């Protein structure tokens, strides 16, 4: 070991675990025959001793009991705050869970109620008369819920709000449609009738020019019997719903 290497490590010679024996022993051997490095080592040992004295002198020093009292008081306050926060958190989680459950419940309710018979009726109509158009079953359900002609008209107006601006006429219950419940799950079907057939639905035969037929929308119950009718103006007769 030379002086430069010694100067790199001499501060660690007395530090436990800082240097391996294979480094420490050659360093001490070097200090035995190098007076300058020996002086450095002596100075380092004196400094170690002085620092140990400082450490020993202040070893028993510690903060006053006032500090312990203050931190214990803060610990108790924080414990109360933490408990409050935990309760608030639990309440928030419970509230959120209840809200989510309510929303899911309402969504399921809205989905299952109108689909109960409407889709079946629509499917049935598709099979029986694939050429005719079928309107949204929700409109039929609304017709079913309203027995009178005025209510049927309301349903028609809501149907036009949904985009079918062509409908100017109102639905009129057919004479034998005495059971509003029969409309439950029904569908609206567009048909072409002989003009004379309007009488059988309780409608007057109007002047239709040269045409012998008339387009009409029928509200058909689940069992296939017409429950209400409205005449479609000639100008809209060929349009889709």
């Amino acid at each position, binding site marked *: 070991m030379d002086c430069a290497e010694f100067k790199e490590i001499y501060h660690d010679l007395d530090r436990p675990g800082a240097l391996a024996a294979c480094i420490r022993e050659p360093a001490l051997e070097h200090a035995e025959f190098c007076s300058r490095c020996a002086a450095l080592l002596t100075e380092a040992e004196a400094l170690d*001793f002085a620092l140990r*004295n*400082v450490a020993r002198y202040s*070893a028993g020093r*510690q*903060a006053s009991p006032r*500090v312990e009292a203050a*931190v214990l008081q803060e610990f108790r306050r924080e*414990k109360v705050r933490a408990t409050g926060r935990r309760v608030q958190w639990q309440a928030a989680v419970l509230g959120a869970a209840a809200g989510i459950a309510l929303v899911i419940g309402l969504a399921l309710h809205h989905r299952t109620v109108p689909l109960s018979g409407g889709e079946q009726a629509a499917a049935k109509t598709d099979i029986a008369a694939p050429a005719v158009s079928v309107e949204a079953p929700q409109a039929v359900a609304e017709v079913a819920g309203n027995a009178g002609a005025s209510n049927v008209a309301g349903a028609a107006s809501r149907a036009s709000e949904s985009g079918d601006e062509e409908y100017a006429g109102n639905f009129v219950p057919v004479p034998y449609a005495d059971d509003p419940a029969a409309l439950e799950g029904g569908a609206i079907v567009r048909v072409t009738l002989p003009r004379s057939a309007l009488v059988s639905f309780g409608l007057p035969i109007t002047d239709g020019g040269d045409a012998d037929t008339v387009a009409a929308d029928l509200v058909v119950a689940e069992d296939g019997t017409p429950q209400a009718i409205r005449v479609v103006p000639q100008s809209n007769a060929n349009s889709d719903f």
Partner: protein
Amino acid sequence: MNRGAETTDDGVLLRRMMAGDEEAFTLLYRRRQPAIYRFALHMSGNVGVAEDVTQEVFMTLIRDARRFDPARGTLGGFLFGVARNHLRRRWEQERNSHPLPEGADELDALLQRSAAARNGKGTNGNGTNHFVGGGDEFTLIETVGRVRQAIATLPENYREIVVLCELEEMSYEEAASALDCPVGTVRSRLHRARALLAEKLHDEQPLRRASAVGR
């Protein structure tokens, strides 16, 4: 508190403390507080500042114990790091580049006792003879005063290394964890700090005498 609790690991005590166990917190405080206090005292030279910093360190532990990451070091190292940050913040607030205030009470008291001892008037403030140990005690007090004064005049980054590695006898690894720097930096800073200290104390005969007394 039973004997088993005194040997309980810091991590276990910390978990219990975070669960609201006051006994665990008290044990942890009493175990770690003296070293934090001494560190703050050596760094500031002021008993009031040391107490304030100690209190702030444990307040931080109470409010924000989750900041401690066992993977990054020991709880002791973490607390020293917090203490160091509080001291720095305090000095920044005071806009005082020299952290030791004028008339730093702790160091002043020590130096006054040292001077009194040199003049043969050594008392402990109660009118009784303080230096019951004779000449060796006189040398010790004088040496401690001068070394502490020399430490207090070191630049902050050297001073904290000396306090942690020499006065608190931390390993290089522990000091590196507390100061959040590599072990190599700790080693080189300590060597430099010791060289500076040796320079400051080079002409101080009491240091030699103290060394001679200790052999």
